[in-house]
């Protein structure tokens, strides 16, 4: 029944509501073996509820969940062949690390020898051998995180579920553990569904990202694709840090050229958009939002082929981080952010020649926010 072509996880028409509130609406999702799917979105978008439904900790209001080709919609969490790592680690406080890791095996009736073997293997993989006799309270945050992962690994499940596992760690440790999770994924070829609100984490870990907004999956795809071709202004604004610049404009299609007219201080500028692959063609007069990532807003010395526009913009704020300068520039009534070379001399209030590279721009419908 469970052929190799079956997706490890398949969700069809999943909905969940609490009383009158729809938390998840008609979610469809399928992932293959070895995938690292990151569910990312702002708090309250339903990503954790979706994960809990997959785990069987919440009962969906409608829809079906298959794991490893078997319908698991009504199956208890313990029989779903999953393991889960929680944000608070959820280590059993009165058990030693070893007991924490083998608790599941013990409940399922594995022999002592089996437990011992699995424990040793996982402990050496995660380098927690020396901690096995300690209690969770005696461990640091990073160590607890490892133990929580050990508890999941020892199960050898079809599907790993991670619920914001790094959110309680400090910034440095978070980056370390992130790399470790990624390495673990590569080594074990495990299938993982990972929930986070941190888009950086999503981008760096995922083989596939699903951006969630208000109970639906707004966009799903490889991280680079989601980054380069966001389907709407929500995804565009959520993915990427610093955030994408949004500039309001109007499409002009005179003389066979396609341009987007934007308002400057008392004047207008035209952004060439001939190259942009409008999904439904360009309509003259259509009100749009142009999305340009800060890394495409740079000093005029940086040149490349392709469509671009050079404007004189007034800097209002400069933040330096060593490898570049992040500059806010006044544009029309708003501001845009750009990334300039650290060698460039920038003075607040003095107009700066700014080159805006349009080769990777996105154009959205102003009313619906959808990509054109």
């Amino acid at each position, binding site marked *: 029944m469970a052929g190799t072509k079956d997706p490890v996880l398949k969700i069809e028409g999943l909905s969940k509501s609490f009383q009158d509130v729809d938390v998840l609406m008609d979610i469809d999702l399928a992932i293959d073996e070895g995938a690292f799917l990151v569910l990312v979105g702002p708090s309250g978008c339903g990503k954790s509820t979706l994960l809990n439904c997959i785990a069987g900790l919440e009962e969906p209001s409608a829809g079906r969940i298959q794991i490893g080709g078997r319908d698991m919609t009504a199956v208890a969490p313990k029989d779903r062949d999953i393991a889960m790592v929680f944000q608070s680690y*959820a*280590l*059993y406080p*009165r058990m030693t690390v070893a007991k924490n890791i083998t608790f599941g095996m013990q409940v399922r009736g594995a022999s002592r020898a089996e437990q011992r073997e699995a424990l040793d293997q996982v402990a050496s993989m995660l380098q927690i051998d020396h901690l096995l006799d300690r209690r969770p309270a005696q*461990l640091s945050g990073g160590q607890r995180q490892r133990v929580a992962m050990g508890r999941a690994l020892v199960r050898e499940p079809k599907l790993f579920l991670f619920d914001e596992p790094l959110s309680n760690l400090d910034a440095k440790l978070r980056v370390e553990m992130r790399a470790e999770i990624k390495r673990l994924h590569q080594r074990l070829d495990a299938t993982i569904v990972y929930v986070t609100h941190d888009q950086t984490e999503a981008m760096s870990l995922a083989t596939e990202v699903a951006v969630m907004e208000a109970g639906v999956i707004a966009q799903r795809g490889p991280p680079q694709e989601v980054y380069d071709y966001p389907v709407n202004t929500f995804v565009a604004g959520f993915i990427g840090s610093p955030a994408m610049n949004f500039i309001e404009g109007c499409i002009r299609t005179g003389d066979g050229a396609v341009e987007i007219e934007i308002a400057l201080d008392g004047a207008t500028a035209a952004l060439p958009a001939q190259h942009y692959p409008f999904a439904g063609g360009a309509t003259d007069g259509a009100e749009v939002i142009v999305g340009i990532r800060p890394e495409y807003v740079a000093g005029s010395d940086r040149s490349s082929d392709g469509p671009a526009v050079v404007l004189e913009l007034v800097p209002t704020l400069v933040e330096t981080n060593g490898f570049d300068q992040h500059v806010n520039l006044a544009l029309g009534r708003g501001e845009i952010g750009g990334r300039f070379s650290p060698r460039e001399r920038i003075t607040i209030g003095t107009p700066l020649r700014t080159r805006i590279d349009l080769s990777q721009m996105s154009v959205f419908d102003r009313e619906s926010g959808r990509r054109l």
Partner: protein
Amino acid sequence: MALRGLLYLLLVVFVAYYMLPLFVMAITSLKTLDEIRAGSLMSLPESASLTSWSTAWGSACAGILCEGLQPFFWNSVKMVVPAVLLSTFLGAVNGYALSHWRFRGANLIFALMLFGCFIPFQVVLLPMARTLGMLGLAGSLSGLVLVHVVYGLGFTTLFFRNFYVTVPVELVKAAKIDGAGFFTIFFRIFLPLSPPIIVVTVIWQFTQIWNDFLFGVSFSQAGTQPITVALNNIVNATTGVKEYNVDMAAAIIAGLPTLIVYVLAGKYFIRGLTAGSVKG
């Protein structure tokens, strides 16, 4: 410095105020009857005599039975121990279910249990008597145990529920995924966390049940009366000379177990609290 001195003075006054009755009881119990009649209330006994204690324990007359407090003391023990254990255990299970296995109507049930805490003893006397009669437990120690368990459930459930709501939900989720069921999670994960609240509950229940007089006098009969009822019968005996020294000794004996529980378990109580305060 003056303030500190004043503070200590005030404390000493309060200590004296609270300890004086116990002091008077203790010295009176050690005096002979002649001494009591002759001396003042506060005078120390000339020679401490324990005869009134042995009388109170072994031969004072409670009603028609002149065997002292001893048989009634054991009645109380036989009533208190199972009642405390049962009500504490059931309260723990209730509190665990109400805090981590939210079911439809859980809040209503909890509210009703809380309400049960505020029903005065007197109100339930008659219905309880009927119930015990129908169950065939009227006048028996098991009947008294049942009454105290039922009456204590509201409190014990409240204690445990409020303790368990501080346990992260994710702990239960993790255990469910690990394959543990309702009772496995309770016994393996929640009970090991519970010593501090168990001690609190046991102290509370032991004191309540040991000191109870109304249920004891209402639902017992000759042979099953708890110590509080016997104490009353000894002290309120209307025949013969009033033996104040025996009365005082009997009262101290009747109150001693709760004191001992406080002294012993209070230490573990503090210890449990500090052990639980370590994060993790």
